[in-house]
């Protein structure tokens, strides 16, 4: 079973926003194929009558009173940013030239 192709990995890398090198794509294609084949065994016992569990100890609707508490100052929030203008995060162009 070879479900994972080079094109699959290229597509996944684009979705995950990682600019993988050609060499990494090559290595990951083989590794992912082996891993996916191994983990696919979950389907053997996952019959329709078994409900899914998303959290080990279920808690529902955890809320707190809607009162203001201590928050970070703008300076603290921006202190670790790669680029800021004092009150905002700075990013490069959102749209490419063709857009």
């Amino acid at each position, binding site marked *: 079973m070879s479900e994972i192709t080079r094109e699959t990995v290229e597509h*996944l890398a684009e979705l*995950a*926003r990682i600019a993988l090198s050609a060499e990494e794509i090559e290595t990951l294609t083989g590794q992912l194929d082996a891993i996916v084949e191994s983990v696919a065994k979950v389907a053997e*016992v996952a019959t329709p009558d078994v409900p899914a*569990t*998303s959290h*080990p*100890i279920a808690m529902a609707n955890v809320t707190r009173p809607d009162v203001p508490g201590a928050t970070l100052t703008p300076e603290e929030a921006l202190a670790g940013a790669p*680029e800021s203008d004092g009150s905002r995060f700075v990013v490069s162009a959102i749209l490419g030239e063709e857009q």
Partner: protein
Amino acid sequence: MLDLTRLSAAELSELLTDREVSSVEVTQAHLDRIAAVDGEVHAFLHVSEAALAAAASIDAARGDGTPLGPLAGVPVAIKDVLCTHDMPSTAGSRILEGWVPPYDATPVARLRAAGLVPLGKTNMDEFAMGSSTEYSAYGPTRNPWDLDRIPGGSGGGSAAAVAAFEAPLALGSDTGGSIRQPGAVTGTVGVKPTYGGVSRYGAIALASSLDQVGPVTRTVLDAALLHDIVGGHDPRDSTSLPDAWPSFAAAAREGILAESLRGVRVGVVKELDSPGFQAGVTQRFHEALELLTSAGAEIVEVSAPHFEYAVAAYYLILPAEASSNLAKFDSVRFGLRVAPPGGGTVEQVMAATREAGFGPEVKRRVILGTYALSAGYYDAYYGSAQQVRTLIQRDFAAAFERADVLVSPAAPTTAFRIGEKVDDPLAMYLNDVTTIPANLAGVPGMALPMGLAPEDGLPTGFQLMAPARQDARLYRIGATLERLLGERHGAILDGAPVLA
């Protein structure tokens, strides 16, 4: 002269309380030990410059008669996955190199409030993905028992720091065994609390439905003392349990003094009773079972037929959650930013940053998680894995009807050699076969040393698991077993190489 680094936290606590030593002396002894051995061990990514000042302020408070908690003045190492406002917090990743968070994680804040002295931040596999600490972007940690071997992972730094007497206590995090498996291979004690027992606020998330913060120590009592301090409800973590917890230290002390284990039903999980495990691990495990029997415990065999699907389910759930959690490393709010040659859109900058900032295992798991969550595959992979999780919970529930605790080896082998498995992800994933089920079900687990494997002289670990919310049971029974094993083997870390 008394070597302060050789004492347990409980022993240091007594000396500090009686004012026979100061926190400055204790802290300096550990800083000296770090300076002497950490060049070889590489347990620390950062050593605090504020440790002696923090120790001095505790000494001053004690001098003034200020009431102090039991571990006030005792040093502690902190896994680099936990945010610290005064030290870099990188989670072992290049993408967070040098990042100093604006706040403390709740477990760290509680340590400080209790007067413990943070010594520094410990090495780990990048974003806690790994079982050997070889995937740290800052180089591997070495096992104090044999510097050519791995200390386990992802929390190899915390376990090695404690095993090498660089710190009496450390904090770790355990998503699939990252506290317990390093404990097993370094001869230390590690506890993964019940899911929700310790706040995850400020713990850089790997897989949010699995992650738990917990203690790494040399004795069961020390683990209990540390758990008492960091545990308990935190309104800042919506998965934090609102329960009132008993004193774990009291449970451990009860276990130390217990005359027998009569009435305790110990369930040996058939599926984890050494299928293909290293011979010396199996031997020490069965000897430990004999000790439990001789102390009056009743040994019952229990079956957990779906545990064989646990690793597969885990390696779908974890990458899926991790790929979502790691989306925040987008080159905007914190950490690295790398622009492609000639610049680019924010999307291209993001992709170039993540390519440069993430290591091979992180990329592998993010891509795998993206695949498991992608349209057309979601039900077959992520959905099925969540169903397996239900089956594993049912296995635990059935087993706990017949037994008070479940037991197994804590890791299938002793420490392997650095480089041995680093290029074989599937082989690496199997290191956690014994520890993953507890994370999937949210139940607490403890690893404690059960002697050295005869064939290689390296530590082996015994795992205890209890029903959710019954962490005290682990401390009580674990402390009794630790005493029985100590009577047979002595304190096993006394046999570790001295290093310096």
